[in-house]
């Protein structure tokens, strides 16, 4: 799946021939709530995101690319602040943390290269 749609809930459901009542019952939500999740009238809850991963075996990143991108942007912004705070420090723990943050930022850049 590509990140062209904000979420792929409806695509996955239809791909497997599931009706809204069927998927809603698997997720433990009402039909109305599922419909709202599909059309993004309602933001997905953590139970929905985890339930979808259990049911379809696809990660939150694949099913909710817009939500993931937003979370990633927020984390990257905080990572930049965190990294700049570590810049002055030369102790081993700070060097390890800087490497960790650099790797995290690099991973995000590689993952988003195709966009």
């Amino acid at each position, binding site marked *: *799946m*590509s990140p*062209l*749609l904000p979420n*792929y809930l409806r695509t996955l459901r*239809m791909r497997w021939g599931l009706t809204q009542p069927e998927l809603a019952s698997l997720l433990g939500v009402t039909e109305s709530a599922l419909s709202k999740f599909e059309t993004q009238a309602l933001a997905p809850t953590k139970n929905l995101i985890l339930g979808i991963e259990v049911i379809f075996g696809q990660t939150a990143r694949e099913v909710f690319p817009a939500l993931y991108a937003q979370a990633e942007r927020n984390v990257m912004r905080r990572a930049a602040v965190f990294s700049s705070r570590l810049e002055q420090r030369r102790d081993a723990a700070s060097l390890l943390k800087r490497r960790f943050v650099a790797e995290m930022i690099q991973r995000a850049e590689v993952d988003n290269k*195709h966009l």
Partner: protein
Amino acid sequence: MNARYKHGLVLAVHPTSRGFGWVLFESPLSPVDWGMASVKAKRSARSLARFERLLTRYEPKVVVFEQFSERPARRANRIRELCRRMIALAGSRGIYTPIYSRESIRDCFESSGAKTRRDIALSIAEQIEVFRRRLPRERKRWDSEDVRQSLFDAVALALTYFAVNTRGPVRSKI
């Protein structure tokens, strides 16, 4: 954006006397949503409203239509007018609206041996698993057309668009 998704979202619609079939692709052979909009009264106005909702919801880059006004296309006046209004609406949003003749669609599926709309539907069902269970049963002379045929007509249009703009004809054998 990489080559696979260079087209953006591609919507194909096929209006009929009872509504329209539609399908949304994000790349060749990768449909993300589809359906059949069924309308009973005020058919043109309601079809156009449903079409507008699809444009608003998915913001496609391309909307593909079948040739409706020039020969040998034989569409009812209402359908022709509806297609014109749909194209005008899509155009007003800056969406590219290619139109393919039935001949172009047949050419696209020629290598799979498909000649009739039924053959093309079978070819599509073979290539894209999600449409297999939607395949209408073979039409007898006394049957009216199954509404699901419009979905396959829309899929054929989208695949023709990808074939013309990317990699040549659709290849699988029926």
